[in-house]
């Protein structure tokens, strides 16, 4: 498919943009798109105990055309990479990518000398906005990643940062 260069709009209304950004950040729609183990933790984050709905990001859509956020949850094999790219291309703008888990960050445990099957990190072919480390990351970590993404969208953090330690 041919991609056209989109013209940026001539008039920018700063307050309007900000209102839109807040609207987008508070209801991110992720894609129902699991690759491997991390997808189970993604499901857990959406299910009863962790309840992603508290942060407005629970509307998992099976179709890329209805999504804002792609959560790359798992190992990307060389065979799967073109499909992931197609899915990303099918998402409407504005869109964001979260690399969940070590595999999506760097290949994780499956990156070794002489490996023949995987892409070592989603950022090799996608513009990743937020990285969530872990193998797999806990659901809390995914929630924090979503909050981090909200901050990136709006420029300010909606929820207080939890001090640890």
């Amino acid at each position, binding site marked *: 498919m041919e991609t056209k260069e989109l013209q940026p709009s001539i008039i920018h209304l700063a307050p309007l943009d900000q209102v839109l950004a807040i609207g987008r950040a508070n209801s991110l729609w992720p894609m*129902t*798109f*699991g*690759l*491997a*183990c991390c*997808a*189970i*933790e993604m*499901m*857990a984050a959406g*299910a*009863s*105990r962790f309840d992603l709905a508290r942060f407005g990001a629970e509307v998992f859509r*099976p179709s890329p055309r209805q999504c804002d956020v792609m959560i790359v949850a*798992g*190992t990307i*094999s060389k*065979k*799967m990479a073109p*499909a992931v790219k197609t*899915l990303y291309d099918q998402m409407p703008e504005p869109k964001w990518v979260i690399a969940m888990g070590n595999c999506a960050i760097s290949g994780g*445990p*499956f990156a*070794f000398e*002489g*490996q*023949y*099957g*995987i892409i070592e990190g989603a950022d090799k072919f996608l513009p990743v906005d937020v990285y969530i480390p872990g*193998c*797999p990351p*806990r659901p809390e970590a995914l929630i924090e990643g979503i909050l981090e993404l909200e901050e990136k969208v709006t420029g300010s953090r909606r929820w207080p940062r939890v001090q640890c330690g």
Partner: protein
Amino acid sequence: MNAPVTDKSLAVLDRTAETFVLNLGPQHPATHGVLRVKLTMDGEYIVHAEPVLGYIHRMHEKMGENRTWAQFMPNTGRLDYLGALSYNHGYCLAAERAEGIEVPERAEYIRCITVELNRIASHLLWFGAFVLDLGGFTPLLYAFDDREQILDLLESVTGARLTFCYFRFGGVYNDIDDNFITGAKAFVKRLRSRMPMYHDLVTKNIILIKRLKDIGPLSQELCRRYGATGPVLRGSGVCFDVRKHEPYSVYPEFDFDIPVYHECDSMARYMVRMDEIEQSLRIVEQGLDKLPDGPVMAAKAPKILKPAKGDYYAAVEAARGSFGIRVVSDGTNTPYRLKLRSPTFSNLSLFSEACQGMILPDALALMGTLDLVIPEIDR
């Protein structure tokens, strides 16, 4: 909703010129991951289905050949991440058999208890996700509620929620404490009291019955030709469970039954898994009562394994069927060859033949009852 090829559907199938190809996956919510099925359809009827694999091939067998025996352990937790402890167990059995390590009794009991808890967690997730495939969202929330209780327990001893790496050659990494024991006992009680609720909510639901009863029959002969194991086989009336058939660890000490249903349909496979949850609860309960004192690690377990030349086989009953592992040792500290026989690989291979002439929603119900975990198929 008719599953078998009837005269009517055969008449439809004859018009091969009017077929079209439908691509299911690799990103599809009902395929549980990255399975792709190329379907040749005639209207709603499936003429031919060809599963395409390899979208999550993670080179486990290659990795086994270039690291030491112990270093491969974390990989076993990432094969079938829903029932990771069974895979830990299978690999440990193979390595212990090759090296001739004796495992202390307490460690064996802990292994059985944690594996069974993991099996329940796996079946609960399957239950939620399967009913979700059929269009019911709520049971997933109930199932995850109970599953989280198990994960809390397992996390307290293993340190992980999903991709466990808890077993060691000659025992387990960590002893269980009183908190775990009281917690597990409370959980057994809790889940037992909730099982009737699951049956009221889902099993007796007329929609579920209509979707599953007499759908997707798998004959014994078909299962034998394809090497199906686990709940898929037990739903076809064959009492084959590695825990009873080839007893390992301390399973002979426990009193439990193997649920077998003879209807061969999707409902039978559903019921097998639901009954297995209750049987696993029995094992956990007995294990906690009988738990002996003692060490959890064999005193003489070598740090670096160098098994004698030759090949060794070990099998366990994982949540999805018989998981076998064949190791070939050349006497060095790395395995020469490591073959992982994953149950869902064989279970899925029968899908192509079984779904011919079915309508698509029924085929998806059949696929759901196979309980697929794709990284375990692709390895």
